[in-house]
């Protein structure tokens, strides 16, 4: 990691932890004595952990587009699985599929991994070098993974690799 990236990451984390401390204590003035020590400790621990490959850069436009998409898809996912649980004859037709990933390894990929499990009918079961193993509740249903991958790429402001 480059020096600039390092400073950037430290500043990001410090701001996040200060905000969290304020959030927890409600900005009580007397809390900042313990707060300073705690935030310092949290920052030290966070920085001592192996860092992700590159500093996190989130595109504001991508974020604005992603939030409503994510909320809408979670709603659909919840309704879908609830409908299946309620239907007496249990309409399930599960399958495992392998999806060739176009996102580069790193935070964006982990983010994709976690969001996949929250979207309709998909559960990320395993990830290897360049494929994501996804469990589908219903193999007749389009898992819409390509669309999700594009959205995540937009969120992290990265371009997708070409499919080999």
């Amino acid at each position, binding site marked *: 990691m480059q020096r600039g990236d390092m400073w950037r990451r430290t500043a990001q984390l410090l701001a996040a932890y200060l905000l969290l401390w304020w959030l927890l204590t409600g900005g009580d003035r007397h*809390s900042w004595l*313990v707060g300073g020590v705690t935030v310092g400790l949290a920052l030290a*621990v*966070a920085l001592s952990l192996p860092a992700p490959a590159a500093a996190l850069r989130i595109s504001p436009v991508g974020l604005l587009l992603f939030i409503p998409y994510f909320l809408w898809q979670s709603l659909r996912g919840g309704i879908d699985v609830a409908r299946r649980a309620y239907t007496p004859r249990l309409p399930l037709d599960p399958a495992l599929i392998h999806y060739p990933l176009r996102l580069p390894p790193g935070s964006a990929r982990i983010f994709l991994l976690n969001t996949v499990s929250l979207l309709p009918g998909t559960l990320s079961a395993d990830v290897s070098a360049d494929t994501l193993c996804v469990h589908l509740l219903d193999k007749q249903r389009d898992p819409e993974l390509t669309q999700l991958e594009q959205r995540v790429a937009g969120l992290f402001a990265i371009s997708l690799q070409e499919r080999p």
Partner: protein
Amino acid sequence: MTGAQTLFDGLLVLLLVILAWVLLASKDLFRAIVLFISFGLLLALAWLRLKAPDIALAEAIIGAGITGALLLVGLGRLGSAVRCRPLPVRTTPLQRLSAPLLVGLLLPSIAAVVLVELFTLPIVASGQIKLVAAHLEHAGVDHPVTAVLLNFRGYDTFLEMGVLLLAVLSIWSLDRARHPFARDQIPAALLTLQRLLLPLLILVAGYILQRGAQGPGGAFQAGALLAAGIILAALCGHRLPPGHQGLLLRLALSCGFTTFLLAAAVTLARSGVPLLYPEHLAGSLILLIEIAATFSIAFLLAAAMAGGHPVPEAKPTAIDERKSA
């Protein structure tokens, strides 16, 4: 409104009793552990309904996170449920009858004594609430529970730190520490979760510690949260570096006890009464002791997880070599 509340409490109590029974009767140890985790969860709810948020917070941290992890690791070391089943032993009819007889006689008599006591108790038992409230302004903290735990009855907490320390010492005398977790590659998703959760655990621990002065919280809850952080780090493959396993580890384990001891010695020398803090210093002293206790409790709980004394040398023993061969 009160109807729903009563129903909620009733169901909660019923569930707790059923769970307690089923988990004690469970022959499958793994099942018993999961039942115990669920029990802890509901118990935290029960403490909240009883308006004891300090205990609820402790139960939530210990029950939801630490005991579950501790028992799972313990089961891993124990081997299996199969192996723990007692061997069939020949018994005389009298021996076979002894357990049902004892339980059948003891339980009803204990229940009868408790019931009689319950009816003779005064209806409104205010306990020591008034006494604590009358002295709260001299305590150095605003939260009555913390005032009792660290000032009025500080010796209780002091001795509890000693008990925890002794517990870890006895664990150390049993076996050497082993890394209880799988050594295969750590999934990237777990590492990301750790990067996110570890600093958050520290922040929330700090928050709960500092809030102990005015509200529910304090050293024990904060220490347990930190311990959960240490356990999470261990789950992600982190280990105590060899240089830190000697004096430094022992200092961390005992600093809560020794800080208390020091405070007791100084106050004894100054005023003739151990742990009687001068009023203007009480707040700062309590905070100091709590910080030391927090770190101690965190390391003590995590040391219990390691399940044995530290092994400084990395040299493999004969058994290890035979196994890897």
